[in-house]
């Protein structure tokens, strides 16, 4: 058999079939490129916007040890944002433009961060549930077909598991504490449970991008599959805490070894995505202000670097 010259396109689909990674310099269909840029940048925005609800409790963290852990956690999320913006840039996207799209409300980010953190227990709930749901997604993405994204996920996943344990530990401490502390924990679970279920995206039959993503091995499991896994993993953890998952229909099915559960209110989901969540406006406004207020600082840094370059040149002549 003679080796046949194959087209770039054929090679691309071969790589996908053989479970090999697509790298930045490889040829790829525009649809694949755009899907990747959209997904990675949304993910990056989520990391960065996600710093805000938790940041709300840095100044009020109830112990110095927890304050340090919270700062370190939020700093990790900033790091995740940074990796992911870089991964998006390998596809030819421009970080400033991506950020601009976030600030004008064009780009999406995880809806969960449009809910407020009303008590210290929310910091525990976010670590446990939100980072927990993120892990379900991200463990899958460690095997995604785009190389830089997949590698970023491997690094990020390790830190996310640490965040999840830390969040769970906050709640465990509350649940072993006073009546008021335990109530605080229950209230947090009540408010964060359904928004966490929404993190996996709409139901499979309503998900617009799912099919292509699965075909291109960007995603490995459907939204509903991941949601089910999350519920199955999380319910026993809630029981261990002695907290009640706010779902009357929650039932363990011994045959399938799954929990059946109540779907989140999808009209709320679409409403929050549209911009009507409790904190959408605040979150974007805060990010935009940080960026705008920082403009003179970035300009100064550029101007200074320019001068240094000039001086070095003149020095060498």
């Amino acid at each position, binding site marked *: 058999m003679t080796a046949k010259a194959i087209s770039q396109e054929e090679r691309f689909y071969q790589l996908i079939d053989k479970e090999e990674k697509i790298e930045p310099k490889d040829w790829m269909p525009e649809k694949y490129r755009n899907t990747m840029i959209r997904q990675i940048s949304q993910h990056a925005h989520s990391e960065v916007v996600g710093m805000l609800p938790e940041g709300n409790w*840095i*100044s009020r963290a109830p112990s110095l040890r927890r304050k*340090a852990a919270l700062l370190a956690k939020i*700093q990790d999320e*900033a790091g995740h944002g940074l990796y992911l913006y870089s991964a998006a840039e390998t596809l030819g996207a421009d970080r400033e433009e991506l950020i601009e799209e976030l600030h004008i409300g064009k780009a999406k980010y995880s809806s969960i961060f449009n809910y407020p953190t009303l008590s210290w227990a929310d910091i525990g709930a976010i670590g446990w549930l939100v980072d927990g749901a993120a892990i379900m997604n991200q463990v899958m993405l460690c095997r995604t077909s785009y190389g830089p994204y997949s590698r970023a996920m491997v690094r990020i996943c390790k830190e996310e598991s640490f965040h999840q344990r830390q969040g769970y530990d906050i709640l465990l401490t509350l649940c072993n504490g006073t009546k008021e502390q335990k109530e605080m924990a229950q209230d947090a679970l009540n408010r964060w449970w359904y928004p966490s279920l929404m993190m996996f995206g709409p139901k499979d039959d309503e998900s617009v991008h799912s099919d292509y993503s699965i075909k291109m091995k960007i995603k490995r499991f459907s939204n509903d599959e991941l949601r089910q896994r999350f519920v199955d993993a999380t319910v026993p953890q809630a029981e261990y805490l002695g907290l009640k998952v706010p779902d009357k229909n929650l039932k363990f099915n011994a045959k399938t070894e799954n929990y059946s559960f109540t779907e989140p209110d999808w009209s709320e989901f679409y409403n929050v995505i549209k911009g009507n969540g409790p904190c959408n406006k605040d979150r974007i406004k805060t990010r935009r202000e*940080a960026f705008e*207020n920082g403009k003179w*600082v970035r300009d100064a840094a550029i*101007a200074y670097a320019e001068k240094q370059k000039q001086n070095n040149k003149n020095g060498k002549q």
Partner: protein
Amino acid sequence: MRNNKTSYLLHLADNALILSQRLGEWCGHAPILEQDIAITNITLDILGQARYFYQLASRVDKKDKEEDFYAYYRNEREFKNLLLLEQPNGDWSQTLLRQFFYDSYCILLYSELEKSKDKNIAAIASKAIKEVKYHYKYSSEWVIRLGDGTKESNQKLKNSLNYLWDFTGELFEVAEYEKEMIEKGIAPDVSKFKTTWFNNVTEIFNKANIEVPQTTWFQSGGKSGLHTENLGKLLTDLQYMQRTYPNCTW
């Protein structure tokens, strides 16, 4: 001796805690993601230093209280931090200039504390000095960058200098509780740092195209518990949980 030493340690701890509380306000709000990470790094180092000093203070104090007691259950008048450190973040230039003043001072202070006759203090200082040297590099570079950046950044730095300078005199004042520490070789005499600190600041300011103010009047009081209005509000935030739900484990 025990009282003076406890007070001195609380002074060092309060400096670090109050500054880290201020710096923590930047997390999520810095001019660019890279700097968000950098400033949070510094926040974490300094918060760590505060915790070491509180832990040591609690051992010296022997009242069977833990680090959090000193951070969360003392009132304004009991805090012994420098006034400079409780001043608001303002813009990036004000935060970095405040940091630069403190870092230049801490390099001198911790290098001396490394030689303290108290081995525990020396151990904390010798760990902290490594961090402080890195912070100094960061803050001094930012002062130069902003001063020698654009017209706008130069002006903003000048405004910050105008606001913060009045609080730098206190760095070199010796509090009552400090005297015994100096006599016993546990703490250095900070009044002797003044010239070195001043020369160093002048050198960096020259590179930053700004001038050292000529004022001779300085605010003081923080080290002995007399603060600006800023501290009370900061503590309200910091201590909210412990005061609202006393005697809980978190």
